[in-house]
């Protein structure tokens, strides 16, 4: 990379010694990106922006928050009432968590459908699953901080899960609590970790981006780019498309913040934490409900905990479960059907996680949980053997230009697949 491309002499002087401008030019400006990406490829940048929004509002909130059981609830109300625009900052942060998860869930399902986890992007995918895991831990600890009824009882239920681990479980729970029940030391360490973990996420996101830029984005057709005719420079083509996506996202986000700020929360969390009074139903935040349903579906405590963590763990090995060389679901007729069944299954798990664990809900939770694991452990490995994929187009440009050459490519691809 030559520094001569910059006309400004100061930029040239700096870039010769510290090639930061060359780096940005290479990775953000001329970075070749498949020209056929659809709107589902907007959610990566939206997730990054959500993370920045959460960190920015979180730091401002931390300036007025008091992590002590006697003052935490009151300090949040002080932010809502007396801090200038504190209500806005807090509603952004509170709803931001939900929107961050919405964006990330769509981003993950996009990866699942278009096979973005397949070679050579396995590590990119694994880093993404790691980000999801860190996000879940961060969100859980953040929900404890206002010290309302759901904060307290959610923390009690979830931390107690670790006691199911044989031999060391009770010690782990004591360590998490910093004592013998959820109390002030728990709140203190959760605050410290809630402040720390977003920066760990930033670190993994940087690795995620490094891995992404090694081979570039996957695309809806799922075949590799064959040359410059298949790509466009990232700027201005995808900067403007991401900006358009961002304005849609911000419109929905703002509608929630300003008109339904408490819709995705639970009213019980506006009641100060009371260790002597258990709420009628303890429900986690909506984005944990599918995992909560899996936890409760298994009658054994340790089994439930293993199933819940297994639901994430199975994602780590997904690249080796689905062995089909075809990435995009568009060309996999059977996979496509099972993908949508899986989406319905996840939505069903989310619904069941919010229902009381009784009667028909228990039965349905067990069926849905079984299907979740069946999809990854049996259906995907099986499909990669028995499925006959549809013919792939020869190149991205051909598909963009209307797929006239698709018939000719069919036989060649079938040979490659077999």
């Amino acid at each position, binding site marked *: 990379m030559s520094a001569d491309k910059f006309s400004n002499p100061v930029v040239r002087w700096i870039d010769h010694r510290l090639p930061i401008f060359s780096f940005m030019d290479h990775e953000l400006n001329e970075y070749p990106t498949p*020209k056929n990406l*659809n709107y*589902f490829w907007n959610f990566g940048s939206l997730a990054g922006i959500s993370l920045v929004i959460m960190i920015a509002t979180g730091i401002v909130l931390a300036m007025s928050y008091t992590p002590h059981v006697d003052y935490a609830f*009151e300090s949040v*109300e002080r932010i*809502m*009432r007396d801090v200038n625009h504190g*209500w*806005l900052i807090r*509603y952004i942060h509170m709803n931001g968590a*939900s929107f961050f998860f*919405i964006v990330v*869930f*769509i981003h993950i*399902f996009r990866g699942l*459908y*278009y096979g973005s986890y397949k070679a050579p992007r396995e590590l990119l995918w694994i880093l993404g699953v790691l980000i999801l895991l860190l996000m879940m831990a961060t969100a859980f600890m953040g929900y404890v901080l206002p010290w309302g009824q759901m904060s307290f009882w959610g923390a009690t239920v979830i931390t107690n899960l670790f006691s199911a681990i044989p031999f060391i479980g009770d010690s782990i729970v004591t360590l998490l609590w910093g004592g013998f029940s959820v109390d002030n030391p728990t709140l203190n360490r959760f605050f410290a970790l809630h402040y720390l973990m977003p920066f760990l996420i930033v670190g993994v996101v940087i690795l995620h981006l490094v891995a992404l830029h090694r081979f570039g984005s996957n695309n809806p057709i799922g075949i590799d780019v064959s040359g410059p005719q298949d790509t*466009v420079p990232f700027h*201005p*083509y995808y900067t*403007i*498309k991401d*900006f*358009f996506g*961002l*304005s*849609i996202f*911000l*419109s929905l986000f*703002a*509608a929630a*913040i*300003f*008109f339904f*700020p*408490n819709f*995705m929360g*639970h*009213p*019980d969390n*506006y*009641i100060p934490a009371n260790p002597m009074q258990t709420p*009628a*139903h303890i*429900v986690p935040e*909506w984005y944990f*409900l599918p995992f909560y349903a899996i936890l409760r579906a298994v009658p054994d405590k340790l089994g439930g905990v293993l199933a819940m963590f297994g639901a994430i763990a199975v994602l780590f090995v997904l690249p080796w479960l689905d062995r089909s060389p075809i990435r995009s*679901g568009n060309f996999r007729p059977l996979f496509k059907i099972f993908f*949508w069944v899986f*989406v319905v299954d*996840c*939505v069903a798990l*989310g*619904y069941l*996680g*919010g*229902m009381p664990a009784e009667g028909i809900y228990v039965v349905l939770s067990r069926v849905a949980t079984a299907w979740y694991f069946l999809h990854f452990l049996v259906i995907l490995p099986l499909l990669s053997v028995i499925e006959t994929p549809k013919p792939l187009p020869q190149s991205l440009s051909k598909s*963009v*230009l*209307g797929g006239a050459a698709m018939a000719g490519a069919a036989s060649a691809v079938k040979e490659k697949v077999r």
Partner: protein
Amino acid sequence: MNRGLGFILGFMLLAGNAFAAGGGDVVLKHKDWSFNGPFGTLDKAAMQRGFQAYSEICASCHSLDYIAFRNLADLGYNEAEIKAFAAEYDVEDGPNDEGEMFTRAGIAADKFPSPYANEQAARASNGGAYPPDLSLITKARANGPDYLYSLLTSYKDAPEGQDVPEGMYYNAAYPGYLIAMPQPIYGDDVSYADNSATDVSAIASDLVYFLTWAAEPSIEQRKRKGVNVMIFLLIMVGMSYGAMKFIWADIKKA
């Protein structure tokens, strides 16, 4: 794949309903509150009446911990009126230079004093039940304003076969129907300076206005700002869409 978004949004709605369903199977009375909807505003006259009703009816048992007298400016009171309200209360302060606690008249910066010294005292005076703090009550209950209005207007004689223990009261809007709070409003409990109606539902409605403001004093500002932000963002959506189409014009020609 486009259907994916719809599914995820549907999932959110389902989850939201699952939360709302947690309150039991009572049917709430729905009222068309002025603060509903994106253009909602608070009714200052109703809030002032509600404040009067709160002071004369609720305040004998229920605290209002997060509200200071100075906040009453939102209801349209001027500084002199607020100082006069505050001065009606005795507030413990200190210690003074001699190390003694002392009692003084309230000032605008004071929070509303609690009717009881502590939770135990409150329970002792109310047959073991704890009258909850009212400053967040409309946010701390599902469908708060409708719930509060229904609760205050649904005291009835217990139906045949419903056993009502000593110290409990039948309320059709309370989950489980048995509530420890005796009927607080019977009609004509207060007399308003503006000669507004003082039947049970009118006083209950005024209280809902006052307590909705108390739970979220920024509610009106939030919605007003929200409309402006939405206008800005929708213009941004239109302009960025146009810019995107302009930039992509040479690529998408097929």
